[in-house]
């Protein structure tokens, strides 16, 4: 006698279970199939190609009405289940029908998660889940704009599909890079670049605040930074939640999903569950491979056969045309884990393997995923890769042969092979130059221009040198930025400018970083280069800063901090002094010291007290003195014409103006200025990074002094007649230094590399160039000329407190 099976939900998992059941034992069960959607089983994964216009619904329909009829399945589509009586073993349909079952199978799938933002109920706010949603999106065209919240797999496929229809799409993602669960930052960067090329606007680290409407229909998305993104349709693709409501109501054990055992049986022995609605061993499922495994197991369980569901390694591919991307396994950093990273900036290729105990445990690939199945096999089978480790990253084609010699590849290039793409220089031209006497990189660069622009072919040019000169060629020992990279600081800066690299992952990829996310040496340098070159595009990354700049105070040897409020030009008032004294009392500051930069240092402040002491100093009108920064520190002055009988100009006034112009600016290293009112030079201006000595006829500006590890007198750059011009020249010098010097070079070190004449040409002789430098400086200052103490008091005070304070007893 046939048993009765009722299935709730006609999705991909129950569809596969049904197929297996009918294939194995077509006469075992009478099947009734309920589905809330008014249709049967279709391949939900292929909705994205339908959206993009690459496929039609008919092509993705898995089970047609004919199939159900042929197999004797009673379909009740468009109908929900109102309730389940487990004791009576019946279900009640929406229309009141009561149907009995021997076995019941849940395939209720999942619900898209809708963020309860104000306005989420507006017309035009949808999820991306079923054919109806897809059709809504397909209704848009080139006159429409759409915002997608969520930069995960589904959100990006929705965005790309709509962009292919000409819709203007913006993706808003709360995390720092796209698909952060599947991709590391470097691959996320390449993906972003490809999507931007498709005309999609991507906003990462963006928090949605409110959905704005007009006449009940969505009008725009408002971000918490005040940006308004107009849209005709808003798609939320931020994740799914297993649909457990009916199961919970029926009294089945549920957690995040419906609890099932290894046989896909729920807490009721006659009820099974498969698909996205289940929770197995703590995990829930969104990808198709495990769902199909569950379906097979469930079908066998229904037939009384032994079968066990085992969770397996999963891999992900993005179904967006032109974005080849693959990720599998675990690619988090960890102890005992090593990375093998391969980057080909020219082709936009990134591969990263994470290896533990000679076994690949994770892989991320972008740009060239041809070998992904091979790598996935190595992960799944836990293959020992020790023997092929050297060539592993290149894929299966390079295993087993003799190790490749990179020089052999260069030697094999024809003479007309282009080496330097920027300047169109071929291998032959470089060989000729070498034969003519250009026997090192600098000489080749000077005579042919090869590698003289963006610098990314430097390695190739060196290899041509090596091949041509043989043993006569000694690779120059140019120090790279750190062990993470082969490029020098100068190369990296050039790449950031010429390739318009505006994020750290962009630099890591395009400059061939060998680590996944840099180190404490390169990250602060890159953070400076990026914010100096792209003040608008790049947002300062506090986590890439040394603690002093992250917490805007100088760390002391006992972990306390020092606090130095700014005293413009060294001038203070009784009120300021009283406020400093009060703060020193209130926070029990152990040491109060007058600094060499004409201000007062409060030493020994506890980290937790920083926001409070800053708030007190702010209230008295004082701001951060940046005594901790690679940036403008102090402008030391003498009293000048105000009081001094020898003073020739208002040196104090100029010092204050300079400090108010330059403060807040980040520079490669610290920047200290001095302004003396006469050549007696009481402000010691001629041993500062930039010094001004006032004379009767104007202002002598000199640069490159030092009074630390090295002691050095400044070089005179120019004398200018007016205070205005003195300020202009100093702004231009500062900006030139910011744009060109290597991180941690003071001006005198930078000057020893580029020459004082080179600086003079740009800030003294070339007035247009000077104006451009000043404009660049002012642009940057429009963002950075503000008090970080006040900002932190308002926005970050909590982060200075302990995460928690535990008052525990000692061990019981």
């Amino acid at each position, binding site marked *: 006698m046939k048993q009765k099976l009722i299935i709730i939900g006609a999705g991909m998992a129950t569809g596969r279970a049904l197929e297996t059941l009918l294939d194995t034992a077509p006469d075992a069960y009478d099947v009734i199939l309920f589905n809330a959607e008014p249709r049967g089983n279709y391949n939900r994964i292929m909705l994205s190609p339908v959206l993009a216009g690459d496929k039609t619904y008919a092509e993705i329909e898995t089970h047609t009405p004919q199939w159900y009829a042929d197999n004797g399945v009673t379909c009740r589509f468009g109908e929900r289940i109102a309730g389940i009586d487990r004791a009576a073993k019946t279900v009640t349909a929406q229309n009141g029908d009561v149907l009995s079952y021997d076995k019941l199978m849940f395939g209720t799938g999942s619900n898209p998660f809708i963020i309860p933002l104000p306005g989420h109920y507006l017309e035009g706010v949808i999820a991306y889940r079923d054919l109806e949603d897809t059709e809504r999106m397909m209704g848009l065209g080139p006159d429409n704009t759409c915002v997608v919240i969520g930069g995960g797999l589904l959100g990006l496929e929705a965005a790309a599909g709509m962009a292919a229809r000409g819709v203007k799409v913006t993706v808003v993602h709360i995390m*720092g890079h796209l698909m952060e669960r599947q991709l*590391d*930052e470097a691959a996320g960067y390449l993906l972003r670049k490809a999507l931007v090329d498709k005309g999609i606007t991507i906003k990462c680290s963006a928090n949605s605040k409110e959905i704005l409407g007009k006449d009940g229909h969505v009008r725009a998305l408002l971000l918490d930074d005040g940006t308004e993104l107009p849209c005709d349709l808003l798609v939320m693709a931020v994740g799914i939640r297993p649909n457990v409501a009916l199961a919970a109501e029926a009294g089945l054990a549920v957690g995040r999903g419906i609890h099932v055992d290894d046989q896909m049986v729920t807490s009721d022995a006659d009820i099974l569950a498969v698909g996205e609605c289940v929770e197995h061993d703590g995990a829930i499922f969104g990808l198709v491979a495990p769902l199909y495994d569950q379906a097979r197991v469930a079908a066998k369980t229904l037939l009384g056969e032994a079968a066990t569901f085992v969770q397996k390694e999963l891999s992900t591919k993005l179904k967006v045309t032109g974005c080849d991307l693959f990720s599998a396994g675990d*690619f*988090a*950093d*960890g*102890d*005992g*884990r090593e990375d093998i990273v391969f980057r080909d900036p020219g082709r936009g290729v990134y591969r990263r393997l994470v290896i533990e105990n000679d076994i690949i445990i994770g892989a991320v690939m972008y740009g060239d995923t041809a070998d992904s199945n091979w790598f996935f096999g190595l992960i799944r089978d836990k293959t020992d890769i020790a023997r092929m480790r050297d060539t592993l990253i290149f894929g299966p084609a390079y295993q087993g042969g003799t190790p490749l010699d990179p020089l052999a590849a260069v030697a094999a290039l024809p003479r007309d092979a282009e080496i330097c793409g920027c300047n169109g220089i071929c291998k032959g031209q470089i060989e000729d130059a070498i034969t003519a006497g250009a026997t090192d990189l600098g000489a080749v660069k000077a005579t042919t221009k090869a590698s003289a622009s963006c610098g990314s072919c430097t390695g190739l040019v060196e290899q041509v040198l090596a091949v041509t000169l043989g043993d006569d060629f000694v690779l120059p020992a140019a120090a790279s930025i750190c062990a993470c990279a082969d490029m020098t600081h100068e190369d990296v800066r050039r790449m950031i400018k010429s390739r318009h690299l505006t994020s750290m992952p962009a630099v890591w990829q395009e400059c061939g970083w060998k*680590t*996944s*996310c*840099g*180190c*404490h040496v390169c*990250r*602060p340098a890159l953070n400076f280069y990026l914010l100096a070159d792209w003040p608008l595009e790049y947002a300062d990354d*506090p*986590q*890439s*800063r*040394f*603690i002093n700049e*992250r*917490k805007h105070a100088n*760390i002391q*040897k*006992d*972990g306390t901090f020092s606090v130095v409020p700014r005293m413009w030009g060294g001038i203070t008032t009784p009120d300021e002094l009283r406020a400093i004294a009060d703060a020193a009392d209130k926070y029990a500051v152990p040491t109060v010291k007058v600094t060499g930069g004409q201000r007062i240092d409060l030493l020994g402040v506890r*980290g937790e007290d920083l926001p409070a002491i800053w708030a007190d100093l702010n209230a008295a009108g004082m701001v951060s003195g940046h005594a901790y920064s690679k940036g403008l520190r102090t402008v030391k002055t003498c009293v000048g014409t105000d009081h001094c009988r020898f003073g020739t100009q208002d040196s104090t006034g100029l010092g204050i103006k300079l400090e108010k112009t330059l403060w807040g600016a980040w520079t490669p290293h610290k920047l200290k200025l001095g302004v003396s009112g006469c050549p007696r030079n009481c402000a010691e201006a001629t041993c500062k990074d930039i010094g001004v000595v006032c004379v009767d006829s104007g202002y002598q500006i000199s640069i490159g002094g030092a009074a630390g590890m090295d002691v050095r007198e400044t070089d005179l750059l120019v004398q200018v007649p007016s205070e205005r011009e003195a300020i202009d020249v100093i702004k231009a010098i500062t900006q030139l230094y910011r744009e060109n010097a290597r991180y941690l070079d003071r001006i005198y070190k930078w000057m020893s590399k580029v020459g004082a004449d080179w600086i003079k040409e740009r800030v003294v002789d070339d007035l247009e160039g000077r104006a451009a430098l000043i404009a660049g400086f002012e642009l940057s200052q429009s963002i950075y000329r503000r008090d970080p103490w006040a900002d932190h008091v308002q926005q970050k005070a909590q*982060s200075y407190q*302990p*995460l*928690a*304070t*535990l*008052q*525990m*007893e*000692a*061990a*019981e």
Partner: protein
Amino acid sequence: MSDWIDIAALDDVPQRGARVVKTLAGCVAVFRTATDEVYALNNSCPHKGGPLAEGIVHGDKVTCPLHNWVFSLETGQAQGADDGRVETYPATVENGRILLDKAALNRRSAA
């Protein structure tokens, strides 16, 4: 069986950053990596007592802010030429919350 105590939300610690948890036996630094792993270490460098929570986090390592010693967050072992180890404590994340092992912290207080 670990007895976990709820410390704070994962998002209270910045990625590639750290915050401290105060205990009767001194501070424990709770680190969060770029890939959202969470580690708990004694907040004191064995070299000169530098507060490791203030260091730069890179990969699964942290660099002490005082003299640039680098430690593995997982084992607490000093890297490279430096020799030393920082005590580590079990830490985990569940449902977006950071959890520390009570017993391990208690042993610490008693020590």
